[in-house]
Structures are given as C-alpha cells and as structure tokens.
C-alpha cells in the first residue's frame, strides 16, 4: 500500500529527488507535513495546491494506493 510523490522546483531541490515511493498516508495534509519536516520545505501547506494523477484535487481527497501525488508550489510561468 504505497503511492508516488512528485517534487517540483524548490521542493525538488530541497528533497534532492524528483519523486519517491512512500507508504500510503492517512491524508494528503499529513503526508505534506511529514515531508515538510523531513526535507525542511520552507513553504507551508496553505501556499500549495495538491494534484493526484495529473489533476488538481481538494486537500481532503483520500489518498489512494498506487496514485501519483504532486504538491504544487506557487507557479511562475509566463
């Protein structure tokens, strides 16, 4: 029972990797808080959006085994 987490931009630099497999968490906010502590992400959850399987979702969406989760820091295209 695991999922994949993708890291982008400053989160990737802080994590030192693009992605990793992690055990299925109780919730997406809990997952982010664990990772934030582990990798010293400077951004609080409130500044991020979260996507599952390539689509933005609400933070209270239940995590699913086998899914791909991405935490999306504020974007800066254009």
């Amino acid at each position: 029972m695991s999922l994949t987490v993708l890291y982008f931009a400053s989160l990737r630099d802080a994590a030192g990797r693009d992605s990793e497999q992690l055990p299925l968490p109780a919730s997406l906010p809990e997952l982010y808080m664990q990772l934030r502590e582990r990798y010293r992400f400077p951004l609080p959850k409130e500044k991020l959006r979260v996507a599952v399987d390539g689509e933005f979702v609400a933070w209270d969406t239940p995590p699913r085994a086998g899914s791909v989760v991405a935490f999306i820091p504020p974007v800066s295209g254009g």
Partner: protein
Amino acid sequence: MKRFALSAGPLDAIVLRQRLLDPAAGACASFEGWVRDHHQGRRVAGLRYEAYPELAEREGEAILAEAMTRFDLIAATCVHRLGDLAIGDLAVWVGASAAHRGPAFDACRWIIDEVKSRVPIWKREHYADGDAAWLHPGA
C-alpha cells in the same frame, strides 16, 4: 488541434500566428513574454522553466477552452517554453483572433493572466552575481 502546448525548443511567433488566421477574423491580439535582464532590481543572466507537463497541459487546455466560451473568438493559442532561456528569448506566446478587436484584446490578456496564475510551470532565475532562485510568487 491542441490550443495549449509546452515546447522544449525555441518558439516561432510566425508559425504560431498562422494558426489564428481566418477569413472572418478582423483582429488578432498577441502577447509575448520575453526573458528580461532584471527582476526586482537584480541583474538576471538567464533562466530555466520547468513544468509538471501532464498537469500543465491539462490546465493550459482548460484555460484556452474557457477563453473560447468567455470571449467571442475565432481562434486562440498559447505555447510556453521549457528549459534554459537566454535574455531576449521568447518564453511564452499567446494569440487570439476575433471578428473585432475588443474580444481579441480581452481574451489575450485573460489567457496570459490565467496561465501565469494556474499552470504548473516554474521559473528559476540565474542572477549575474552567480546566485539562482526558484520563483514562487506570494510564498
């Protein structure tokens, strides 16, 4: 045809513009984002754009589809560069054609505003002093 795309190679404004031509179109507004040599007082030497491509393409298409319904357009398109860019390089191109200029201008501006606020693309600026930083506006 897709209305939104990411591009690993240089953008060609002329080729992009062709997509908007239509005998019923009387107006075409376009926007180009160029890599400029300064940001908030710092000298910029170049930059790198990265995306979450799957999500960026989905969001980009959603923006362009919404533009087609919000504005009285004939065609609209947007392409965003990824990778390493030098000063003066074309980073993003938006174009909208319509029978009249009002909707063309309004749509063009709305599209670039939405792309900048919603599409998961990130800019890493390389400064003249050797430093570099990811930009996360509002963070």
